[in-house]
Each structure stands twice: as C-alpha cells, then as structure tokens.
C-alpha cells in the first residue's frame, strides 16, 4: 500500500464516517485488502483442482458423462439458492449502510439459511451418490469389460468428491462466518462503520463461495 494516505473530508453521511483514502487502494481497509489477497490464494487452489480434473478427464477417453450420473436438476436448485444468497448478502450490506439494523440482520439470516440449504442438498446428493456403483467414496469402481468386471481407480469419483467437498467446506465456513456476524450485529445497539467494514469483508468471502460454485457447477456437472 502507498505510504501516503490522505484523509477525506470528515463530514459523514448517516452513521458512517469516511475512512482515509489511499492513493492506490482508495477507501479499502487493511482487512478488506487482506481478504482479497486470501481469496486470490484460495482461488488459485480451486484453479489447481479444476485444472487437475480437466487434465485427468482429457487423457481418459472412458470418462463418464457427468449428467448421466449426477443429479443436474437438484444441483441446479442448489446453484440458484446460492445465487439468491449472494443477492440477500448485498441487500444486507445495503440495509446496514442505510443504518437499518433490522433489515440488515434479516437479510443476513436469509443468507445463512441459503448456505445451510445448499449444504443440506449437498449432503442429500452425497448420500445418494455413495450408494451408487459409479461413485464409491474410496475411488474404486466396477468397470464392465468383455472378460468380466474389473476394479479400476475411479478418478471421476475422487476428483468430484475432492472439489465439491472442498467447496462444501467453504460453504460451511461461510455459514459459520455469517452466523458470527449475525450474533455480533444483534448485540450492537446501532450499526457503525467498523461493523459495516467487517460485514463487507464477510460478504466478500460469501460471494467468492458463490463465484467458485458457478465455475465448479459448469465444469463438473454440465460439461
């Protein structure tokens, strides 16, 4: 960050005073910049996993058609729920910026519920998949050959559970993060700039979880 930071006019709108303006990062706080750097590293981790999936798939001509194994319609519902939760997250932040604590906490609760619904659908999906012969958890599947049935490594199952499970862990973390913000917000008498900043940082993480799922859903379920 630049060493020179200028302070903006001290006049404030509503409940939020103007933070200092850095010439390189504007009004972004250290916490926000830190969260962005974390998200970059996390994004690169997901990118590595998806690239590994893609490479394994390219070199394996017997890769199964995901739409024949996975429940696309159910996952589409989960995807839509996650998109809705992203909307409720920004509406929560907008309400907080206006000083409307009740609306802010309400939208935040809706966002957390959206995340819980997504996790519920994922658990339901996993329960069904692990009982199917194509997607056993330990990565071994029956391959029907002319000479009989052979046990072969199931890279599709391994990469599927690895990537979607890693994302599910992010959703769980995000829900915990949002509930923490909900509790902290409820305990406050009014919404101040510090809390709004924390809420915006939490929102960044939640939107990242949504953004990654958009890519995972397309690359693993649809292609």
């Amino acid at each position: 960050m630049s060493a020179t930071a200028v302070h903006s006019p001290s006049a404030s709108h509503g409940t939020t005073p103007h933070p200092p303006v850095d010439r390189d990062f504007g009004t972004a706080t250290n916490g926000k910049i830190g969260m962005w750097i974390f998200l970059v590293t996390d994004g690169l981790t997901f990118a590595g996993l998806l690239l590994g999936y893609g490479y394994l798939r390219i070199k394996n001509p017997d890769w199964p058609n995901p739409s024949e194994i996975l429940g696309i319609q159910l996952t589409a519902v989960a995807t839509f729920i996650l998109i809705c939760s992203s909307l409720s997250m920004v509406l929560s932040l907008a309400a907080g910026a206006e000083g409307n604590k009740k609306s802010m906490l309400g939208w935040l609760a809706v966002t957390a519920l959206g995340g819980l619904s997504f996790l519920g659908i994922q658990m339901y999906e996993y329960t069904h998949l692990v009982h199917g012969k194509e997607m056993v958890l330990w990565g071994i599947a029956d391959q029907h050959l002319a000479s009989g049935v052979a046990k072969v490594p199931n890279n599709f199952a391994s990469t599927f559970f690895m990537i979607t499970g890693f994302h599910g862990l992010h959703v769980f973390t995000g829900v915990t993060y949002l509930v923490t913000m909900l509790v902290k917000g409820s305990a406050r008498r009014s919404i101040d700039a510090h809390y709004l900043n924390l809420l915006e940082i939490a929102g960044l993480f939640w939107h990242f979880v949504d953004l990654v799922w958009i890519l995972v859903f397309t690359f693993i379920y649809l292609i």
Partner: protein
Amino acid sequence: MSANAPTHDSAHDPGHGKAHDRKTYYKVFAALGVLTAIEIAIPMVAHKYGNDRSSLAAFTPHWSTSALYVLSVAKAVLVGLFFMHLKFETKWLKFIAILPGTAALYALMLGAEAYFRFGPPT
C-alpha cells in the same frame, strides 16, 4: 503505483454512493438466473440435436462446451464486478483480484499439451 489519489466517487466506500444500488443488484440477479437457465438447457439441446448434422447445434464441434465456458465466466465476472463491488474499486485491487485468472493460461498450456499427446477430443 497510481500517482493520483482517487476521489470518493471513484473508490468504493461501503455505505455510500452508487455501490449499493438495489436496482443494479436485482438486474445482476436476474441476469445470473437467466444465464444459469441457459447453461442448464445447453447440455439438453446438445444431447438432443448434437448428432443431427443439419442442426445449428452441430454447427461447430464441441459448441456446447465452448458456450458453457463463456457463460460461466460471464456469470463469475458479474458476481465479481457488482456483488463484490470490484467495479467500484481502484485498479490495483482489481489487478490483485484478477490474478487467479492466470489459471486460464495454465489451462491453455495443459490443453495444448494434451492435444499434442492424445490428439483431438472425441
């Protein structure tokens, strides 16, 4: 590094200005919903008409995969720009945020290597 300090209008400021425009949020939400519906429809259309050489679906090989790539990236960009407020951030924060996009370069290299080693996708 930038030589000029951004004004409050150019920098995102939580709680102020145009970053929290609810109309924009609803428009982005609608766009994400529509794009997702198109994405889900594409594999169905490809499955139904993919082998019909006279149909538009067979106009280019692997058309559905290309379309899905474009749509998913478009959705991710919408979330980043409007929900994560990158549109209102300074160029340095935008630059940091776009770094994972370099994975696309690795994907191109891996794709080229796989094409050389295994031939065109079937």
